[in-house]
């Protein structure tokens, strides 16, 4: 029975390691954050309080946090779907841009009744993201071009192409700055309803929650979800097991692109109410970081998105109230992702080995 006991040991260890992973990362990040704040001649306590106030201190603050949590959740779950299955869709940014532009067009060009119009915008945005994701997917399948390269480069294409199209829609070359390259405002019928007055916390929240729930259920209960997970975990094994890996690859890519497109759409009809060229402040990359921290789990994405959003809104308040720059928070977020990515299991095993060695020496 000895091997069984040792097995138990190892399993318990892996759970412990995962808890330790988050605890250590958090402590290390807080420590570095503290040093940074002190180095900037600010009071860490005040900075933290202002951050908290900025994120949750008032109805308005909570509204702002929810406003940011919506795109974080959507782009995070979009990244999770791809990364969990080993598809490195780094093109979330690009898919999001095409989703946003398409939603804006559907929003201002077409007349529809209120709810239908919103849904039409969201669906059109998703579809645009999906179609834009189809390009790297096909390039990979038919020409064996790595999706990391194609999606990365297609991001630039998307950002500039949407800007160009917007310029043309405006009817000319009149714009003088990028922020003035915009589509007309969408019709009132297409706008998402705010759930907290005076903020951009809209009904998009329910949409984001629903999508996370759907993805969660997909993995837990459906055969497609099972196959998506297994393909990501071990492709040759899944192929030998009769999974059509090419089909799965396309499905995963398209689902990921669809959700990224929806994210773009909610930004347009929920926040800006029009498409603004180069509007996204690296939202796509936030998605990659969020899913990394969440270890590709849908529930994890939900939690991390709110934390991410709280950081975003809290940092602005912190900047207003202290001498600190809000990019301090970005730095700390990135550090946190780095700490999370450390192979703690390996370190733990080394430590165990060392302890075992010492124990034997003592015995002798």
């Amino acid at each position, binding site marked *: 029975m000895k091997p069984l006991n040792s*097995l138990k040991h190892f*399993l318990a260890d892996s759970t412990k390691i995962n808890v330790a992973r988050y605890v250590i990362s958090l402590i290390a990040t807080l420590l570095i954050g503290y040093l940074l704040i002190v180095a900037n001649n600010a009071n860490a306590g005040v900075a933290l309080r202002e951050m908290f106030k900025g994120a949750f201190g008032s109805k308005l603050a909570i509204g702002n946090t929810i406003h940011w949590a919506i795109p974080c959740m959507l782009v995070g779950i979009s990244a999770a779907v791809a990364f969990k299955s080993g598809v490195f869709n780094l093109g979330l940014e690009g898919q999001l841009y095409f989703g946003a532009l398409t939603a804006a067009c559907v929003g201002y060009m077409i007349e529809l009744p209120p709810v239908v119009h919103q849904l039409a915008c969201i669906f059109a945005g998703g579809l645009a993201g999906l179609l834009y994701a189809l390009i790297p997917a096909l390039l990979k399948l038919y020409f064996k071009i790595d999706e990391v390269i194609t999606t990365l480069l297609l991001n630039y294409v998307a950002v500039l192409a949407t800007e160009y199209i917007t310029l043309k829609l405006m009817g000319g070359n009149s714009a003088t700055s990028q922020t003035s390259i915009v589509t007309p405002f969408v019709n009132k019928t297409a706008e998402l309803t705010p759930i907290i007055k005076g903020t951009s916390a809209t009904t998009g929240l329910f949409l984001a929650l629903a999508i996370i729930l759907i993805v969660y259920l997909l993995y837990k209960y459906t055969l497609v*979800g*099972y196959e998506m997970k297994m393909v990501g975990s*071990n492709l040759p094994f*899944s192929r*030998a097991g*009769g999974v059509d890996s090419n089909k799965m690859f396309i499905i995963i890519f398209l689902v990921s692109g669809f959700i990224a497109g929806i994210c773009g759409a909610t930004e347009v009809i929920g926040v800006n109410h029009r498409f603004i060229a180069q509007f996204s402040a690296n939202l796509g990359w936030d998605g990659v970081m969020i899913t990394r921290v969440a270890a590709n789990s849908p529930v994890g994405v939900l939690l991390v998105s709110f934390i991410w959003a709280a950081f975003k809104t809290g940092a602005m308040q912190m900047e207003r109230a202290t001498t600190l720059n809000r990019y301090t928070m970005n730095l700390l977020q990135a550090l946190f992702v780095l700490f999370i990515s450390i192979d703690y299991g390996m370190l733990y095993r080394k430590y165990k080995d060392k302890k075992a060695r010492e124990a*034997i020496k003592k015995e002798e």
Partner: protein
Amino acid sequence: MSENISNQSEYVLETRDICKFYGPLKANDHISLKVKRNTIHAIVGENGAGKSTLMGILTDTVKPDYGDIILNGEKVVFRNPMDACRHGIGMIYQEFMLAPNFSVFENIIVGFEETKGAFVDYKKSREKVEKICKDYNFNLPLDEVINELPVAMLQQIEIVKVLYRGADLIIMDEPTSTLTPQGIEGLFQAMRVLKAAGKTILFITHKLQEVFEVSDEITVLRLGKYVGTYDPKDLNQQKLANLMVGREVILQANKQPGEPGEPVLSVRNLSVYDQDNIQRLKNVSFDIHAGEILGIAGVAGSGQQYLSKTIFGLSKAAEGSKIEYLGKDITGNTPRENRADHIGYVPQDRMVMGCDVKTSIWENTIMGYHRAHGFKTRWLVDHKDANQFTEKVVDDFAVKVQSINSNVGSLSGGNIQKLIVGREFSQDNKLLLIEDPTRGIDVGAIEYIWGKLLEFASQGAAVLLVSHELNEVMELSDRIMVMYNGELYDGGKYGEFDESQLGLLMTGGVAQKYETIE
């Protein structure tokens, strides 16, 4: 190393209380052994007995937790693998450590080049290599590129490489696993030549027959512990097997050849080209009948892999090939279609293609079953059904698991293999394509899987058994075919041909290439 050590102590190597623990697992538990100078010393043990860990410690690829290594009477502590090498310990790994795109000569001298200032002195290095080849009677094509040479030749290159590095003690890890019977005989001759020249050889194996053929002393390890060192004259195969596993083991399958039924699989003119457009199978034709095990023997890389892969749909058959299964043309069908048609597949590479170590046991077990047999609905995973099926496989095949929700990675190699084989056997498959079902697992698990395989065939299924273990093919197959260079040769019925006859076929019936040592 230099000559002045040859008159030193009787033992070239001694280990004292070597310990290596991986967490709670004791890979080496106070191992103390002595190796006599100028002998061939076999180290035997089941998988997981601690052989590889011990060798890793001797070559410093694994750091011991405790214990001393005494080399030529002196305690040594290695700083790194190169250091172990400088102390005269040379290792020949099971998987050859050669750079495929470089020449034989370059592979031999790499890391230990003779130098002239900052430059490599090719002339001097070459002279040294040539002298070694001459002294030990190796005939190597020094300027040829590695990837064009046969396996037996690669092994000779490895031997010359460790001699070039000044090895006095040569460790060989399962050196015979990739060789034909003739190649093995050649290797044994080489070992004897090395011994005659004053070298000491540590020979790791779990093939008992070989142990008796060459070794002067046998050390047995079991579950990380040292069992003892024996003189081969005092033992026989049965006794040695008992020492290894601590119980009686029958190494024969006791097959009862049956009457084959209707043909299940008919392969006609099957040709396969790999991604580099090299022809791997050349117009292969054969039938397998119900209740029959067709064994495919052959040296690694003769094309056997492509046979099962192509039938299963993982490789593409060339134009003109025809694969017929129960009267239906299945050429070009996908693995999913084949699984739905009750064709099972056990791939050779169990850790990559056979299972996924990062997910749970039940998720691994329902792979294949989930579509081919399916659950109540087409779209959802029926967790009740999945659990029942997994429990059945685990029970029927005596897989030791803690919970079916544990990761497959937490199981031992033998248990993983039982799980994989069990998964395919439990799906009422009518045809099973199975590659190396017992490679690298312990005697107990081999016995179990062999028994199950024979039972499976006796119930009327057809089995294509591709194995690199000739003994396995001979013990289990109703009919044997030998694959050589992409072509199939008749290897007779069960018990018709003996090992050396088959070995000759495995090398194309031509004289051995491994013939340089007289």
